[in-house]
């Protein structure tokens, strides 16, 4: 694997291979010495043009557990705020000898530009670009579902027949997009639920079903309910009347939680707006996988960095 830019171009076998390597990485987290020497001497740059805490520290923890050196670069307080272009930033990182660059950018497609421009030779990992994709989030979600369903026998399995309902701001959500492509590639059935104003144009081409009523979706007893964060920073127009209205119609509150089958998983990519898209009771219930998703995120990112960086170049 040279880059990880999107989940759309991952095949089923490639996706399963990443999840299987992540299983081995997860085993390391249970040991007294949580470190592997596989990427000794490699340099991973976290290039973050957008605020992020959990994704950045997750990548940082992953790189450090593989013994790589980590450089954190956030646009705030850097040369970017003085007007440096993406090209100059990339060439600067290349000159410093970066082996992989983990990019988060507010513009969709920025990681692909870095990967294809020739400005830098490093492997590029998309850590979220605009409203396009967030592939490692989708991989960790798939990993979390697979582990909960199959436990220790998860290796080599896909998500055939698993029903996943994704609820919330589909329009702006890169998490939703990455999950739609990955989960359907792995054989899951994906159903999207959102206010009509937050459903993107062209969704009829996606391999999903779409609904507007959360109660109907819950009555269908999905195996997984994935709540998306209401991203106030991307909302530049009135997509719904107010927060209370949204919570009433599309929030996973205590009543809806009670109607959900006990075996169904409640997922959220974090950070959560408790009381808005998810109630505190739902977030803290045994069905909730929120903290597992965080722990699994480190394993997935270790797997991705390992697959990107460990082999000889060009093989």
């Amino acid at each position, binding site marked *: *694997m040279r880059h990880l830019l999107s989940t759309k171009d991952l095949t089923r076998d490639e996706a399963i*291979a990443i999840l*299987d*390597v992540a*299983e*081995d990485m997860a*085993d390391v987290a249970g*040991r*007294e*010495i949580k*470190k*592997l*020497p*596989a990427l000794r001497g490699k340099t991973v740059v976290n290039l973050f043009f957008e605020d992020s805490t959990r994704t950045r520290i997750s990548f940082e923890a992953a790189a450090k557990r*593989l013994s790589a050196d980590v450089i954190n670069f956030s646009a705030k307080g850097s040369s970017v705020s003085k007007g440096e272009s993406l090209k100059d930033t990339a060439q600067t990182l290349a000159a410093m000898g970066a082996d992989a660059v983990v990019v988060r950018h507010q513009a969709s497609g920025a990681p692909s530009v870095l990967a294809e421009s020739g400005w830098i030779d490093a492997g590029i990992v998309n850590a979220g670009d605009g409203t396009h994709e967030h592939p490692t989030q989708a991989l960790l979600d798939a990993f979390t579902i697979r582990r909960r369903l199959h436990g220790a026998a998860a*290796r080599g399995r896909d998500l055939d027949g698993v029903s996943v309902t994704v609820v919330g701001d589909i329009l702006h959500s890169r998490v939703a997009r990455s999950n739609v492509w990955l989960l359907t590639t792995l054989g899951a059935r994906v159903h999207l639920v959102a206010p009509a104003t937050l459903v993107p144009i062209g969704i009829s081409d996606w391999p999903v079903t779409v609904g507007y009523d959360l109660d109907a979706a819950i009555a269908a007893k999905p195996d997984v309910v994935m709540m998306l964060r209401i991203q106030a920073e991307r909302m530049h127009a009135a997509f719904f009347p107010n927060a209370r209205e949204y919570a009433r119609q599309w929030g996973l509150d205590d009543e809806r939680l009670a109607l959900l089958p006990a075996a169904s998983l409640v997922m959220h990519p974090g950070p959560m707006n408790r009381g808005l898209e998810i109630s505190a009771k739902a977030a803290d219930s045994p069905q909730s996988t929120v903290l597992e998703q965080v722990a699994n995120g480190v394993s997935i990112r270790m797997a991705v960095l*390992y*697959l990107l960086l*460990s*082999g*000889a170049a060009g*093989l």
Partner: protein
Amino acid sequence: MTARLVLQSADITRALTRISHEILESNRGASDLVLLGIPTRGVVLARRIGEILDSIEPGSGTVGFLDVTMYRDDLAKNPTRAPSPTQIPSGGIDGKTVVLVDDVLYSGRTIRAALDALNDIGRPRAVRLAALVDRGHRELPIRADFVGKNLPTAASERINVHLVEVDGVDEVTIEGSES
């Protein structure tokens, strides 16, 4: 290319039985023994030795497996390798006598990686090495304590170990360059 048969099924079983007795003898019994197979075929061999140990002294065949992929010194020179799972027996390895089991001992680099991997998992009382075939050509100061068969080879030759559990047949062959 011709493949010459060196060990047949019965030879392999005899060698493993002898190795099992040697392990018990050098350990002065079966206490605190942990067999760790190195994937892929080392795991199969470790399981078989574990079964033989169990039949000699019940309860002595504690078997696990140890993946060394992440500890190899040639990671950056080869295509990306997918790691295999590691499973350490529930009792851990601290204070135990660990016997590493591999199919072919060659350069010794796999065993060096295994020693590094063990270091991250715990502190065994002693580490021993069992190999079905020792073909020579060591590149590191490493030797086996228990050897099924010493096979002097040329570096250009290939040793193929086939085991029923993985390959459907038990045999060891040498593939030679005709020179």
